[in-house]
């Protein structure tokens, strides 16, 4: 006989529910089953109306983030055996509006992602004939960790400051911003620093640090945000020393 576990899933069907409600399912599971597989079992065998996002099943696409027993986690990377005997509480990612069931509205993040200009703005434009941009291992190390982000939004669900003020650019986007600013090939730092220092920038962060705890890729977004507090403050004070009109 297969073991079973109780999964309490937060449902929200805008056409019929006034607000979110929990619905309980009994799910048979084996040791190799993730929370995502539990949800897939529900959808395939028990209740086809349940909605959730997923794609890769291997912690790389970043679409399956949800609150599992109150903590932001990738459901494909969290195993039911570790949560037995249960019950397991599954909710949509905190701090985002719920579109339906476990699906959140992420337009806000996509917009922020665009605003940080997440691509290399070449410091020195080169033609194809001039060959590739070279980078030493030491230069790579400066940003490599911040380039591992998979846009899963767990850090946003872990950030109370984002929950309280959704204008805050937030940990994930700021970590990516830092990834480009710290790249030796990039020359766009001055443009991006405007956002870093803006009202919605790094100074919303009060160093709670939970974002870095929940990040499945060890990006340490809190570190990126806090390094940029120093950079933004230095820019501000050094700005007084520069002659007028020299700011780029």
């Amino acid at each position, binding site marked *: 006989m297969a073991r079973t576990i109780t999964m309490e899933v937060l449902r*929200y069907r*805008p*056409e019929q529910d006034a*607000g*979110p409600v929990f619905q309980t399912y009994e799910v048979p599971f084996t040791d190799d089953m993730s929370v995502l597989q539990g949800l897939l079992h529900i959808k395939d065998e028990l209740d086809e109306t349940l909605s959730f996002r997923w794609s890769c099943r291997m912690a790389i696409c970043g679409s399956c983030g949800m609150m599992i027993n*109150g*903590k932001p986690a990738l459901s494909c990377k969290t195993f039911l055996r570790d949560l037995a005997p249960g019950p397991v509480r599954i909710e949509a990612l*905190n701090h985002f*509006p*719920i*579109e339906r069931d476990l699906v959140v*509205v992420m337009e806000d993040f996509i917009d922020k992602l665009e605003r940080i200009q997440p691509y290399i703005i070449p410091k020195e434009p080169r033609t194809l004939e001039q060959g590739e941009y070279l980078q030493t291992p030491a230069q790579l190390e400066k940003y490599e960790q911040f380039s591992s982000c998979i846009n899963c939004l767990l850090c946003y669900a872990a950030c*109370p400051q984002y*929950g*309280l003020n959704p204008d805050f650019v937030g940990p994930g986007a700021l970590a990516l911003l830092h990834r480009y600013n710290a790249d030796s090939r990039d020359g766009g730092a001055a443009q991006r620093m405007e956002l870093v220092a803006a009202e919605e920038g790094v100074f919303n962060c*009060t*160093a*709670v*640090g*939970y974002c*870095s*705890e929940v990040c499945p890729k060890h990006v*340490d977004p*809190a*570190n990126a945000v*806090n*390094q940029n*507090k*120093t950079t933004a403050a230095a820019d501000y004070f050094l700005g007084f020393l520069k002659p007028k009109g020299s700011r780029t």
Partner: protein
Amino acid sequence: MSKRRPYVRPMAGWWRKNPFFVEYMIHEGSALFVAAYGVVLLVGLVCLAQGEAAWNGWLAAMKHPLALLFHLAVLAMISYHSWSWFKIMPKTMPPLVIGGKRVAPAMITGAGLAATVVASLILLGLVWGMTR
């Protein structure tokens, strides 16, 4: 017509819902004790400026059992504050590279705590030496 009706969940009581946030709030709260002790020292300084009588009055107030109890409470809170402050310190600074190797977060936290203990002991020794 769109059936979309995104539901925004309330934030009320957010910090009670996760042990990590409770710890964060205690850390932030303990800063009030640090500030309170700063005020106590400031009052002492003002008394000193006001002359011998005021200064002796402040010294006597500091010896009251309630004042001693207050000191114990503040010591506990400040210890907690330093501990939790150094715990997040590695997250707030650029990577520290010594001899081509990145210093581990635990090392940074440990060094900070060690510095606190050493500085406290030196201060204690100085005051001890001066008042005997």
